[in-house]
């Protein structure tokens, strides 16, 4: 299993290590509004939330509570309308689109509800893709991709295209892909929603193991009680605001 990334990769932002260090990523009084016709709907309102190395955090709440929006803001997939998102203590709002892309590439991993694998790439190539973006040499890419696929239980599926894999296998490939560049934080949006119960349990155990062994922080947006029960910190959202933030 890959270790958690050490602070400071190619994107120019050094992510902190150590308990006294600033959080890996934090929302500071962040708000995000959506326009629906003539009305403006608040999806996230004045949320402050920080994620530190090795945390296993579940964002829970009813539909429309702002879980995914907050995940997108913290993952630099979206920009807040008010407030800011800091990565390693640096305001990510000041970064260019390329700078934000590089930060995601080097420090973040993503797992999506619908897996979002690249259809024309094999399992191994999907895992290798973020490393291609980082300029990792081909032999190293190949070795690490296979290691990760082995670690998620997909030995022998290296050359298989996503459409020939089951839902659970696809999500395992997605997890391997999320870990390929040795990220500091993995953002997972409803990662178990499209999986059967047995597969979902296995996926969550795998993520928890990665978190504990590698120090990788995981942030889930989820409805799934199995995710919540495994989380060491649960943040409840309601109407775009943090209702509670409990450590376990």
């Amino acid at each position, binding site marked *: 299993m890959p270790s958690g990334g050490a602070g400071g990769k190619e994107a120019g932002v050094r992510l902190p290590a150590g308990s006294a260090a600033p959080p890996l990523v934090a929302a500071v009084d962040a708000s995000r509004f959506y326009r629906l016709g003539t009305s403006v709907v608040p999806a996230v309102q004045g949320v402050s939330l920080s994620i530190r190395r090795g945390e296993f955090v579940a964002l829970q709440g009813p539909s429309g509570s702002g879980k995914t929006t907050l995940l997108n803001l913290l993952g630099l997939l979206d920009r807040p309308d008010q407030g800011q998102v800091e990565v390693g203590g640096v305001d990510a709002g000041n970064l260019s689109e390329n700078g934000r892309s590089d930060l995601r590439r080097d420090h973040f991993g993503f797992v999506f509800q619908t897996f979002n694998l690249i259809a*024309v790439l094999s399992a191994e*190539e999907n895992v290798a893709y973020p490393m291609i973006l980082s300029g990792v040499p081909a032999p190293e890419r190949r070795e690490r991709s296979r290691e990760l696929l082995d670690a998620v239980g997909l030995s022998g599926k290296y050359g298989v295209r996503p459409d020939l894999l089951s839902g659970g296998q696809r999500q395992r490939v997605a997890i391997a892909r999320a870990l390929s560049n040795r990220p500091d934080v993995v953002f997972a949006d409803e990662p178990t929603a499209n999986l059967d119960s047995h597969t979902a349990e296995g996926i969550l155990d795998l993520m928890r193991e990665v978190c504990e062994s590698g120090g990788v922080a995981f942030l889930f947006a989820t409805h799934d009680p199995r995710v919540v029960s495994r989380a060491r910190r649960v943040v409840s959202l309601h109407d775009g605001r943090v209702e509670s933030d409990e450590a376990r």
Partner: protein
Amino acid sequence: MSVFALAWRNLRRQRRRTLLMGAVVAFGFAAFALAGGFIAQTFDALKEGTIRTVGQLQVVNRLAVTRTEEKTLEFGLRDAARARAIAARDPGVDAVIPRIDFVGLATNGARSVPFLGVGVDPGPEAKATFAGELVVAGTYLSGDGGDGVVLGTGMASALGVKPGDSVTLLATTPDATLNAVDAVVRGLADVRIKELNDRYVAIGVVLASRLLQSSETVSKLVVFLKPGADERRTAERLERALGAAGYSVAVRHWKELAVFYGQVRLLYIGIFGFVGIVLVVIVILSAAIVMTMAVTERTREIGTLRALGTRPSRVLWMFLAEGVAIAVAGCAAGAIFALVVRVALNASGIILPPPPGATHGMPINVRFYPLAYAAGLVAMILTMSLASFFPAKRASRVSIVEALTHV
């Protein structure tokens, strides 16, 4: 994995659409290649035909360039035999043949028809030009031409004569008196242009000089060059050499003399240029539609790639690469198609209709013209790049969150 490798996989994934777009490119390319080959062949044939008619260079009295003759041979080239010998000594010159242009009346005793006459040196003339090949009845002139005459088929028909019959040729001499000679019809020529067929008369320079009473004066010396000889430099050398020998001459290039060649060239370039532009627009529109569909269908994938840290510029290049890959593959298929069609057309024996005023069409002939293939490839790559650019730009600017939720 390079953007081209990824592009190629995406194209293979959308096989039907790729084939459709590839077919558009292939047909566009084939049209470029075939039209280019046809135009090149036509220009070459026209150039060869022009040169074999007027020569590559013509040596004339300098006054003949700027002034119009009011009397026959008023601005002719005097002491022509010496000038011809001087010109023939130039290392770039293959043949120098004299010509005398004149007008007059041909009569069979019962009927008179005006003619456009040319006095020639039959042997070299037949060797260097089409003159001998145009004879459709009887023979071309031989030796110094003697008292022989070759008539256009229209002229012979108007006079009601055939090879072996006698005609009388009347013309005005340089001192404005009327003179006549008897001649025997040796052959009938079809000079491919109806109006000229009705007026064409060719006789030997000796007989022409006797008719015009002007020995050692010709209208021009027609110069044919050796293969590879530089036309401009040879013209300069001839002008210098003849000038040094006391001649006041101008050496004219075939392009100056063949206005028709330039006009036809411009006409063809205009027609095929317009068709080419229409072709490019069709390919651009087709490709833009296909690429826009591809971007729309793959919006979620674009969102994923962007989320994983793909820079917008790389997304742009990915889609541009797909356009370029289709262009290259389509051109390869189009080249094979064009080569097959070319062979089929050339073997078909199809005769193109004669151009206005001409009496004969010509068999279709499409040359293999590498420049047209290269131009087609460049045009298709540029066209597909342009067509892909705006959809690709849109893809690179897509909002990641919206793309990830795209249905």
